C-alpha cells in the first residue's frame, strides 16, 4: 500500500505542478464564463437589424392593429431588440401579390410577408393568414404576429357581435397560474405554505451538477492515458514494473488521478456554491448533494480512469489510442443523450433505466438526485451496487490489460487481442 501511495502522490504532484494543469484549472471556468457572456452579447448586439415585413390585407381591417402593435413594441422594446416594421402591401390578385412580395424578400428588401385570407374575421371555414419568409428559424416575428392577429381578430369579432368590450375582457381574462412545490408539514405537524417553484432548483442546479461532473471526468481521465503512454514512450515502465506489480502501478495512478480531480472539485464546487449563495439560491444546493457529487465523481473516475489507463497501456503512441478511445468516449457521453428527457420526467421509466446503466449512472443519478424528490432509496442503493460492481470489473479488466499491455511495444492490439489479454491467466 505504501508503494501505491508513493505512486499516487507522485502522480498528483507531477500533475498539479505542471503548467498545463494550472492553465486548464484557471482557464476552464474563464472559457465557460466567457462563452456565456459572448452568447449574451452576440444575442443582444448582433441581432438588431429591423425586420421589415409586408401585410397583404385586402379588407384593410387588421393592418391598423398590426401597425399599432409594432409601434407600441418599438417604443417599449428598447434599442437591443430588432424593430418589427410593417407596411401595407398593395391590393390585388393574391397569387400575383404573393409572387411580387416573394421577389422583394429574395432581394432582401423585406424579411417576410403576411397574407391574410378574406373572411378571417367572419370565421369562414379555412380562412386564416400565412407567413412567408426565407428564414424560418427566426421565430420571434411569426410568434408575435400570431398573438397580434389573434387579438385583432378577436376584437373585430367582439365588435361585430356588439358584445360589451369590458364584459368580454372580464369573461375571457386568463386564470393566473402559480407554480409551487408540495405542501410540507412543519415540526408541529401543521402544513406549511408550499414554496414557489424555482428555475434554479428545477433546472440550473441539476444540469450544472451533471455537467460539472462530466467536465471533471473529461478533464481528468485523458491525463491518465497521457501519463501511461508517456511512461511507455520514455521507457520508464520497465523500471516501474521491476519495483511494483502492474496492478499496483494502475491503482497508484488511479488514486493519484482521483486526488487531482478531487482537488479540482474543491475549487469548482466551492466556486459553484459561492455563486449560488451570491445569487440567493444557496438553499438549492444542499450539502447532501455535494456529498453525492463526490461519491459519483469517485465512481466515475474509477470506471473511466481504469478504461483510459488500459487504453494507454495497450498503445505505444497517442495516435494509436484514438481508435480504442472511441467506445470509451461513447460511454462517457451516453448521459448527454438522455439528460433533457430525464430532466422532464425524472421519475419515469426511461430515467430509471438509463440511470441504472452503470457507465451513465454517476452523471444521471446525480442529475436525478438534484431534482426533488429524487430517486427512490432502493433505486439509489441498486445504482450504487451496480456501479461499484462495474467499477470493480473495469479496474480488474484494466489490470489484466495493463499487465500485458505495459510490456507490449509496437502494433496497437485489436479489440479481440485485448479480450485475449483479459482472459489470459
Amino acid at each position: 500500500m505504501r508503494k501505491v501511495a508513493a505512486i499516487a502522490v507522485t502522480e498528483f504532484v507531477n500533475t498539479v505542478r505542471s503548467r498545463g494543469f494550472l492553465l486548464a484549472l484557471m482557464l476552464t471556468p474563464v472559457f465557460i464564463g466567457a462563452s456565456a457572456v459572448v452568447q449574451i452579447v452576440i444575442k443582444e448586439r448582433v441581432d438588431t437589424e429591423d425586420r421589415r415585413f409586408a401585410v397583404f390585407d385586402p379588407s384593410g381591417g387588421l393592418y391598423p392593429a398590426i401597425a399599432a402593435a409594432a409601434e407600441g413594441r418599438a417604443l417599449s422594446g428598447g434599442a437591443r431588440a430588432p424593430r418589427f416594421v410593417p407596411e401595407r402591401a398593395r391590393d390585388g390578385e393574391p397569387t400575383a401579390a404573393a409572387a411580387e412580395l416573394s421577389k422583394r424578400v429574395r432581394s432582401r428588401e423585406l424579411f417576410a410577408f403576411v397574407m391574410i385570407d378574406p373572411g378571417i374575421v367572419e370565421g369562414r371555414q379555412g380562412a386564416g393568414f400565412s407567413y412567408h419568409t426565407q428564414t424560418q428559424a427566426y421565430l420571434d416575428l411569426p410568434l408575435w404576429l400570431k398573438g397580434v392577429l389573434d387579438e385583432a381578430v378577436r376584437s373585430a369579432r367582439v365588435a361585430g357581435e356588439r358584445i360589451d368590450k369590458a364584459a368580454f375582457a372580464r369573461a375571457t381574462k386568463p386564470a393566473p397560474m402559480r407554480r409551487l412545490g408540495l405542501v410540507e408539514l412543519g415540526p408541529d405537524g401543521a402544513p406549511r405554505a408550499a414554496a414557489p417553484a424555482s428555475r434554479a432548483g428545477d433546472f440550473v442546479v441539476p444540469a450544472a451538477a451533471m455537467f460539472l461532473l462530466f467536465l471533471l471526468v473529461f478533464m481528468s481521465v485523458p491525463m491518465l492515458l497521457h501519463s501511461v503512454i508517456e511512461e511507455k514512450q520514455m521507457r520508464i515502465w520497465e523500471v516501474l514494473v521491476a519495483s511494483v506489480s502492474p496492478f499496483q502501478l494502475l491503482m497508484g495512478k488511479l488514486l493519484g488521478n482521483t486526488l487531482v480531480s478531487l482537488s479540482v472539485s474543491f475549487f469548482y464546487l466551492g466556486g459553484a456554491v459561492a455563486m449560488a449563495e451570491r445569487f440567493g439560491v444557496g438553499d438549492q444546493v444542499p450539502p447532501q448533494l455535494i456529498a453525492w457529487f463526490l461519491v459519483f465523481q469517485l465512481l466515475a473516475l474509477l470506471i473511466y480512469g481504469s478504461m483510459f489507463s488500459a487504453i494507454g497501456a495497450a498503445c505505444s503512441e497517442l495516435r494509436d489510442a484514438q481508435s480504442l478511445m472511441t467506445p470509451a468516449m461513447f460511454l462517457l457521453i451516453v448521459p448527454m443523450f438522455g439528460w433533457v428527457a430525464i430532466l422532464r420526467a425524472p421519475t419515469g421509466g426511461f430515467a430509471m433505466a438509463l440511470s441504472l446503466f452503470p457507465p451513465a449512472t454517476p452523471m444521471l443519478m446525480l442529475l436525478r438526485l438534484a431534482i426533488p424528490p429524487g430517486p427512490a432509496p432502493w433505486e439509489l442503493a441498486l445504482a450504487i451496487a451496480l456501479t461499484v460492481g462495474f467499477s470493480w470489473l473495469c479496474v480488474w479488466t484494466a489490470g489484466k490489460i495493463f499487465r500485458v499491455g505495459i510490456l507490449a511495444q509496437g502494433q496497437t492490439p485489436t479489440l479481440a487481442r485485448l479480450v485475449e489479454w483479459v482472459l489470459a491467466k
Partner: protein
Amino acid sequence: MGVSDPAVRIAGVSKSFGTHPAVSDLSLSVPRGTVYGFLGPNGSGKTTTLRLILHILLPDSGSVEVLGRHGTRAANDRIGYLPEERGLYRKMEVRRQLEYLTALKGLPPARSRPLIASWLERFGLSAWADEKVEALSKGMCQKVQFIAAVAADPELVVLDEPFSGLDPVNQEVLREALLELKRRGTTVILSTHDMAAAEELCDTLCMMHEGRKVLDGTLEDLRARHGTGMVRVESSFGAAGLEGMPGVAAVRDLGRVQEVRLSGDPQELLRALVARGGVSRFETVRPTLKEIFLANAAPAAKGAP
C-alpha cells in the same frame, strides 16, 4: 537462506513469445557476492532472462528463485535494475525522481536521501540534483539511471548493457562503481555483448545463443576447458613446415608467428618440433572470451536456418 546459497537459481526455464522461443530450457546459478555476466549477441535471450529474474515476465515452464524467494516478486525490493531501454521522467527533478524510484523499492525518503546524496556526489552530479532531467546530457541521464538502480542499497543488481552509450571516461567511472558494489558483497548480474568488459569484470559467465545457454562457468573454467586447443609457434621453417606435423589440425599464418589449432596433445607437437630443431617460441594460447564464444556459438549459428 545461507550465504552459500546462490543469489539466483534458474531451473529448466523456457519462455516463448507467440511461436518464437526467447529462452529454451535454461538452467543456471548465480553465486552470491560475485559479478555474473550474461554474454551473447542481440536476440540471444539475455534481456528476457533478466526480466524473468525480476518477474516482469513469467516463465512458460521451469522455476526461478531469487534471493531465496521462489516464483514471486517478493524479492524485488532487494533488487536494483538498470534496463537496456533507459528512461526517466523528463520533467522531474533528479533528486525527486531518485527518491520516488527508491520509494518504490520500499525505502522511505528519510532513509534514501543520504544514499542518493552520496551516489550523486560520487558521480559528480550533486550540482544537478535539483535540475529537471530534461536539462541533463545523455551521459548524465545514464548515470542518474544507474544511481536509481543502486541507491536503495540492493543485495542484487541487474544491469542490462550498462556501458552502452557511455564515453570512455564514464565507462571507467561505472566500472569502478561496479567493483565497489562487489567489494560490499552485492551480487551483480551484467548483461552485455561487450566481451572485453565482461572478461575484465565478471567472475562467472553464461554465454547464450538463440535462447539457449551454450557455456557457463568461471572465466578460468572456461579458459581451462577451451584454451588447450591452440598454440603459437615461432620457428625457422614457418607455416609450411608445420603442415602435416603430429597433432596439427590447422595452421593460421600470422607472419613470423603461426597459430596452430591442435587435434592432439600439445606435448607431442612440442617433442616433434624440438626434434626437428629451429623452434624459438612455443606457447599455449589463452583464448579470449570472444574466441571461446565464437567457437561455441558459431556452429549453432551456422546450423541455424
